[in-house]
């Protein structure tokens, strides 16, 4: 049985003899492990970012868009023709059992004025359920009510971006702003949501009662017209049921006969976002795989140097064999050297990888996340590289014939 502490000491000494060579060999592993960790951190960061955005959208979301219509053989694009109405929204809430909340949306751009400040933003006419659909809380103040919707009151709640641009440090609650020159009272401010998955600033918005939007701000081309209906299903399992129920209900309400195309589209937003998240997982794996190639190259570097080392130290191997070292003792010694190279390289690589990920997040403003799992797997992987690429040189060393080895110049 070989004495491990002594063998490790011997290995360190052998590695110290050619310090420069040892460091350069390690560099291969350092870069490999560092790259794997940094790439995985970027990928995980991207995944989390999209995950957060999905969460900020609200969960179990369905969206009903007006469909394309055909008039005189000319087909207009999706959403070009408003076909949805407020009563559709109310009917869905009442009759589609799998739908928990429904919020109508009639939106448009408008210039907002407060005092001597002005700002252009998206004004969304909707109902109070919108906050439930989007899982959105108020930071301060209160929301408008169903009563406000019935009476088409001129009240609004503001996104944080609008508040920042119009009010600065002033408390906006109770203030009067002008939307398209119509005065509105600010009831509340929405909490900060950040970017949407499409990259839009979700906080750059104003919510007003949908009826107010219809009657006073934007006007409608038919009674009760809205652009979009946002729905929240009762749970993930209800998404497809809700989709089916809404489809049937709206076909019926819009008097669409069998075999004719829908004049609306129901989209499962959550599903779309999850697809996007799947894509980042694939991206993470791809980045990791590319980085792994450099780890592989580092491993080949170790094998190369170990082979050189075995040749250089043939005489030493001969002496060891002559005084009674077994083949396995020689093999163990060189395996330990390769392992030391790869493990120290691995540890330094982990430090560089974590540092690199940190640097990327500060320089590129891209969130990176180093998971303990990626550190552990990078460490194990570098050990594996050491074992795999150290084996052949060690095996070659152990096969040396003591007489030839002793005679080697």
């Amino acid at each position, binding site marked *: *049985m*070989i*004495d491990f*502490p*002594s*063998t490790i000491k011997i290995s360190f*000494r052998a590695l110290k*003899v050619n310090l420069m060579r040892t460091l350069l060999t390690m560099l291969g592993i350092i870069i490999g492990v560092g790259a794997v960790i940094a790439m995985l951190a970027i990928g995980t960061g991207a995944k989390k970012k999209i995950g957060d955005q999905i969460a900020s959208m609200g969960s179990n979301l369905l969206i009903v868009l007006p469909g394309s219509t055909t008039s005189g053989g000319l087909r207009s694009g999706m959403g070009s023709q408003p076909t949805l109405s407020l009563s559709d929204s109310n009917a869905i809430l009442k009759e589609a059992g799998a739908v928990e909340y429904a919020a109508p949306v009639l939106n448009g751009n408008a210039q907002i004025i407060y005092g001597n400040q002005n700002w252009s933003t998206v004004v969304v006419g909707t109902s109070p359920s919108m906050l439930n659909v989007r899982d959105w809380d108020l930071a301060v103040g209160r929301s408008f009510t169903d009563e406000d919707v019935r009476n088409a009151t001129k009240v609004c709640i503001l996104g944080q971006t609008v508040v920042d641009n119009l009010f600065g440090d002033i408390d906006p609650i109770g203030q009067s702003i002008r939307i398209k020159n119509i005065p509105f009272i600010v009831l509340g401010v929405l909490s900060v949501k950040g970017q949407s998955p499409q990259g839009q600033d979700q906080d750059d918005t104003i919510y007003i009662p949908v009826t107010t939007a219809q009657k006073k701000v934007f006007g409608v081309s038919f009674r009760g017209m809205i652009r979009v209906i946002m729905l929240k299903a009762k749970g993930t399992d209800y998404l497809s049921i809700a989709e089916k129920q809404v489809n049937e209900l709206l076909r019926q309400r819009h008097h669409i006969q069998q075999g004719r195309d829908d004049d609306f589209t129901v989209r499962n937003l959550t599903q779309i976002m999850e697809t996007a998240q799947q894509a980042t997982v694939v991206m993470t794996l791809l980045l990791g795989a590319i980085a792994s190639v450099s780890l592989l190259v580092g491993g080949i570097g170790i094998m190369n140097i170990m082979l050189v080392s075995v040749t250089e130290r043939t*005489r*030493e191997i*001969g*002496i*060891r*064999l*002559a*005084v*009674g*070292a*077994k*083949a*396995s*003792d020689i093999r163990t010694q060189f395996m330990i050297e390769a392992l030391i190279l790869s493990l120290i390289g691995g540890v330094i690589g982990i430090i560089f990888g974590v540092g690199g990920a940190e640097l990327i997040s500060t320089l590129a403003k891209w969130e990176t996340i180093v998971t303990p799992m990626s550190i552990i797997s990078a460490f194990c992987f570098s050990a594996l590289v050491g074992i795999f690429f150290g084996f052949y040189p060690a095996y070659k060393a152990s096969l040396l014939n*003591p*007489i030839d080895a*002793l005679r080697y110049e």
Partner: protein
Amino acid sequence: MPILETIEISKTYYMGEMELKALDSVSFIINKGDFVSIMGASGSGKSTMMNILGCLDLPTGGKYLLDGEDVSKLNRDQLAEIRNSKLGFVFQGFNLLSRTTAIENVELPMLYNGLHAKERRVKAMEALKMVGLAGREHHMPNQLSGGQQQRVAIGRALVNNAPIILADEPTGNLDTKTSDEIMSLFVKLNTEENITIILVTHEPDIAQYSKRLMRFSDGHLISDTLSGQQ
């Protein structure tokens, strides 16, 4: 009492069509406490004989009994164990590990028989004292003279209490005065510690120190006589 015995040992090398008999049916007995010199021209088979006696090589024919055990059929690892426990080697070129202190060189054989570090240190110190190098434990080989390096090598051969020391031209790289000192050390180890010593040399002066002289020529043992000063 025989410590090693060869029975019609042969070693044949094949080089393509050519057949080269390095050793041809060599038989002899060496007793415990013998001090044998092996002489012969180069190519006489003496080095091949040493390699076989040292369990570094196996004969292609015949039997080699070491301490009563037939070692000619052992595998690599079993041979390594025999080398470790029963044999000590001293080479012409010293064959010390460079960048390794004297005492660590002496400790080397004990690295492979499971001794604890402390025990190794103690035994290595004893061995160094025995070869007259006390106080030089932490010198590197390149800080030692040729004679001192050879003493370290002898210490390494002694450290596992091997009953046999095989020395292959141990004074080949040394001047006359140092050669005499090294040979005196061998004589001392032979007489005081009863260690069996077999050495290969081509210098008659060196062979003078031994009790017995074997001459090899063309793979045959041509003479085996008692000789030397004793």
